[in-house]
């Protein structure tokens, strides 16, 4: 049995190698593990598929590239596409910057082909989101023009040269669904896009029971097409699937951990279709002893920051048992680490008292020694009407003027408020960007039908170019593997960070009210009808003759019924002569006077 398997495996393997050479397709799997300073562990998976298309080849014949993705490129004129499904919030202060950033919930943006018109882009975008909704089993189909914005300054295309980039202006669409909950139903289709599926290779580590039990996890798909400016047919299609997971040591139990502890099982070898299968372990801090010992340690100096990576090439490891790496703490002190925060962090919160108006505040902290230029893209849905004149940026209670404000007012039920503010955050200071909004009543069908936490505001995106790489692990735009970030010094490092998404409790009517109102209205009508009718139809004439009667004598009369004539005469009577239109006026009484 074993022999058969092995033979089959080798046959498969070699055919794979041969065909891959023919098809100009490559597939890489990478895993980056970084023990974070506060005792949590970041594991970052990246699966890269690259397909060099040459003249004469078309997207209909796919091999490693998933067919659904190829079709998307074919049908929707997409140049670049990013989708992320995230649970939890990346904590920049304690974790540094992630390799790939994403906002809580679902986030998606795409660049479209430069030759489309605006309306075409909109319609392609809508179709694209609906298609992807099926591909990833996420609620991306809820993305429409009411929650889509067109970023102008904060986002940069990652395809082509500067020429194509300028053409791409205005062909981007961005949307978030902060309410989206990420679960195993998203993980399974995400894994299905991989050539080895989830049976073998690094993706076999991603079992839903363990991935969803973590502090933070984010699945993402990044797709871009890089085309030659001269020969348009010569293109490279690049698909990166990333999974960013943060484990908590305390939840794993103890200060030691291993791949098996984190993922529930060891690694059952490399994906045979992969060109490389490498695990990188950050050993800069040297807090752990690694078992097995790495065969190689790479030193990467990038932007003045040196990082050490232990490298495990899984392809070279023997396949007869599950591969596992263990981290054993060198010191068992119950010490509290001092964490130096990254240069730029941002937070967002709502200030309000009561249910009338409030303030959305975005707080950007620059702990770098020099000023930083940032572009803040606020994400404000249509049900949070903001007032541009209340937009203030303050540093230590002193107002500063933004360098640039790009604002497209929202329209209720039509489009969100789009606000991009470019400003300089002075060195070692905090900028607070605040804008006032009103609480509004929605139409009754616009309230969620079920129990709901409130209405969500997606996270703001803050883009900047960092001068150094402290806590920075991003992959440069010209690379596609994690390994490409080694020694990749550049003049600046483009960084995007996202704030928390917010929950707003809009004034909610008591939905049992209609019932109460109906009951009350019916009662009022019933009660009011009689008197109104009688007032409208009767003429009241009053004559009174004064006599004094005690209650007692009256009562007596009432009790004994019969009245004496004298009493009758003396009795004060109200005569209501009813000159009614209706026939039955037998109530008429004659006045004694």
């Amino acid at each position, binding site marked *: 049995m074993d022999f058969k398997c092995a033979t089959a495996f080798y046959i498969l393997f070699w055919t794979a190698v041969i065909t891959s050479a023919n098809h100009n397709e490559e597939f890489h799997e990478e895993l980056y593990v970084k023990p974070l300073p*506060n*005792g949590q562990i970041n594991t970052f998976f990246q699966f890269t598929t690259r397909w060099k298309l040459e003249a004469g080849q078309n997207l209909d014949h796919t091999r490693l590239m998933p067919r659904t993705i190829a079709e998307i490129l074919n049908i929707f004129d997409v140049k670049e596409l990013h989708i992320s499904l995230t*649970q*939890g*919030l990346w*904590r920049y*202060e*304690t974790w540094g910057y992630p390799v790939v950033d994403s906002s*809580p*919930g679902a986030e998606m943006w795409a660049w479209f082909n430069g030759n489309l018109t605006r309306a075409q882009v909109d319609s392609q975008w809508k179709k694209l989101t609906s298609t992807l909704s099926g591909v990833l089993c996420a609620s991306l189909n809820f993305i429409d023009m009411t929650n889509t914005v067109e970023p102008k300054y904060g986002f940069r295309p990652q395809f082509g040269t500067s020429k194509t980039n300028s053409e791409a202006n205005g062909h981007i669409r961005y949307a978030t669904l902060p309410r989206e909950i990420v679960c195993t139903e998203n993980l399974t289709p995400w894994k299905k896009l991989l050539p080895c599926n989830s049976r073998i290779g690094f993706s076999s580590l991603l079992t839903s029971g363990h991935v969803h*039990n973590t*502090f*933070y996890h984010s699945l993402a798909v990044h797709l871009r097409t890089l085309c030659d400016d001269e020969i348009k047919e010569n293109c490279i299609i690049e698909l990166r699937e990333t999974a960013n997971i943060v484990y*908590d040591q*305390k*939840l794993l139990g103890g200060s030691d951990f291993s791949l098996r502890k984190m993922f529930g099982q060891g690694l059952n070898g490399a994906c045979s279709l992969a060109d490389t299968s490498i695990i990188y372990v950050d050993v800069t801090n040297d807090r752990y002893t690694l078992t097995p010992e790495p065969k190689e340690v790479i030193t990467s100096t990038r932007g003045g920051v040196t990082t050490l990576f232990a490298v495990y090439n899984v392809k070279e490891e023997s396949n007869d048992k599950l591969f596992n790496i263990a981290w054993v703490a060198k010191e068992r002190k*119950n010490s*509290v680490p001092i964490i130096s925060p990254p240069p730029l962090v941002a*937070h967002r*919160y*709502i*200030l*309000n*008292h009561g249910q009338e108006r409030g*303030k959305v*505040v975005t707080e950007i902290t620059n702990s770098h020694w020099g000023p930083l230029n940032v572009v803040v893209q606020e994400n404000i849905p249509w049900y949070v009407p903001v007032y541009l004149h209340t937009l*203030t940026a*303050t540093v230590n*209670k002193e107002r500063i003027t933004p360098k640039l404000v790009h604002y497209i007012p929202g329209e209720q039920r039509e489009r969100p408020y789009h606000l991009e503010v470019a400003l300089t955050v002075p060195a070692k200071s905090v900028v*607070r960007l*605040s804008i006032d909004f009103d609480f509004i009543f929605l139409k009754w069908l616009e309230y969620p039908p079920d*129990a*709901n*936490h*409130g209405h*969500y505001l997606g996270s703001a995106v803050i883009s900047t170019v960092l001068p150094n790489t402290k806590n920075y692990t991003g992959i440069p735009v010209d690379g596609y593997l994690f390994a490409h970030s080694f020694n990749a010094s550049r003049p600046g490092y483009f960084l995007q960070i996202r704030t*928390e*998404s*917010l*929950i*707003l*409790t809009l004034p*909610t009517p008591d939905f049992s009210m209609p019932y109460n109102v109906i009951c009350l209205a019916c009662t009022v009508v019933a009660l009011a009808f009689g*008197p*109104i009718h009688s*007032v409208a139809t009767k003429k*009241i*004439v*009053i*004559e*009174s*003759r*004064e006599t004094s*009667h005690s*209650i007692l004598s009256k009562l007596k009369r009432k009790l004994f019924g019969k009245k004496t004539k004298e009493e009758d005469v003396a009795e*004060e009577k*109200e005569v209501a*002569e009813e000159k009614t239109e209706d026939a039955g006026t037998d109530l008429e009484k004659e*006045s004694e*006077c």
Partner: protein
Amino acid sequence: MGILTDASLNQRNHLGRNFLKHNRKICALFYLAGAVWFCCLGHSQFNHATYLSENALSPGLVYSEIKVESARIAQNYLDELNREREVYRSGIPYNWIMAKMQQIGLEVYTHNFTLHYPLGSGREFHGENIYGILRAPRIGSTEGIVFSAPYRPPESVHPDITASVPLLLAFAEFTRRKNYWAKDLIFLVTDREQLGMHAWLEAYYKGDLEDASALDAGNLKGRAGALQAALNLEIQDFDAEYLNVKIEGLNGQLPNLDMFNLIQRIAARELPVREPCGYKQTSPRKRAKNKNAVLENVKAMLSMLLSQANGVPTGNHGLFHRYRVEALTLEAVKKPKSDYQSRGAAVLPLLKVIEGVSRSLNNLLERFHQSYFFYILVSNDRFVSIGDFIPCLLLMAGPLFIKAFFLWLGLNVEDPEMEKCDEDEKQAESSQTELKPIVKKELDLQYSKVLRIFLIAHLIGFLASVMPENRGLNEVFATLGLSSNQFITGLAVVFSIVALLAPHIVELNYDGVELLHIVTLLELASVLVVVGLLNFALGFLLSIVIAPAAILVDRNHNASIKCLNRFYVILLHPLIVSYGVVLILTLNAFPELGLLAVAQRAIGATMDALTYSVVDSIIYGNWVYNAVTIAFLSNWMMLWRVVCYTKTEEGRPKLKTS
């Protein structure tokens, strides 16, 4: 068809006459009906059993996971903290608390605040809160729950609650090891009693973007989204005799009844039988048996109303309510004498209660919105909802409206001689069926004069409300060497004298006084109802005291009753009412003292109470002082003017004879 415009109801006909004749009886009937209604609510036929409305809470559905180990940690923390307290006699051992929080693995922040004391020379007080946030793995910091414990330094005059912080930290340590949290947990240790909590909340909800008033709350460095609920812990000792749940918040606001029920359910499940938990729980040893249940219930309701009426929160939880965060305080009262064996016996049950509550709150899918926000607790498992108790207030404030109506009706009542003339006329016109205009005497209602009195009274009331805040005035008195207490009392006395004299500036005739009386009654009734809607306890208790004024005060009394009336109205003066309340409270607190000694003591206490109510109004936004000065003092002045009217002042105008 309106009753006011109905021509069939006037002073001349039978109904009108009877109304006028029996108006006091009718009013008294309403008043008594209100009182009886309230007493009825004590009977189990008229109140309801509590139930949990919010299904997501499902209390006690999870198995308690907190183990003896956590109790041991709490005990260790307490021992450590007690050692720290020997060093820090008057402040918080910040380093110790922060180190513990950091070790547990929380995000730790401090929050500084400054109070510019609004009275006197404007001294400054500084404080510092410490809080740690456990970031929930299941959520992106969009929602949070607060667990707070006030810290009292050893020199504090309040009861010692040292054990709260260790318990809080032990629970935090437990939560850090669990991964099911779907709301960020904030563990907050507050400084300077309610001020610290108030400052923290102000900072959380207002930030420092607006100009600070008396309290400079600053901003917070870490937040946890929209707060859903809060639990405040006041643990006197780990050897607890019983648990007391405090719910009354600022301005008489209450937490959602579900929150209270949740605590009750979980406490009933987790606490041993000998440690009862409940609202206004008293020592189980003092329980007397075989008492009248209805009477006990009514007493319990009244005691809840009494503690709600002054609008002062009974614990740190009370400040959350205005931000729509459901909060209450769990107070563990220590055993009068503890033995070594039972030392720390209550830690684990307490931790289990907190765990149960936190996990139920963790399940919440939406903000508390079901169940009741307005209720009176009859006992721990029975309550009266607003629909049932608001009629009491209406029945009590109703007589004021009715009285005003009767006065209006009686304004043009004729003398008997005049009626005779009328009768002749009547007979002459008896054949006519047309509506005949009633012959009226000349009424001189003096609208402008009444308006003048109204304005003067309210201006004085307004001044009484804002004067204590005035910085300049405070400075002047401070330089004179007067304490803020004396300053406030001085102001109160001055305003009382002004209130006694001011309404007499404007001369009024008989009808004018009548009109003033009507205006007074209408205003009083509206104010009582409005106050009752905002804070039922205050409105209801004031109605009990004030409504008889409507029934008693009348112009047609003879001199001695008039004198009594005046005396009664004097008693209703806000200052005297507050003195009376304080006196009764002092009598209850020190039954061993003589009446004179108590009366003297009560004067000092009233002065303090007055100052506190002013300070509360400025710092916390408690509106009792403002309501009393603006509405009730002004109204009292007008009422005073009414009862002071004598016929000698200006004779009744001559009736015009036809």
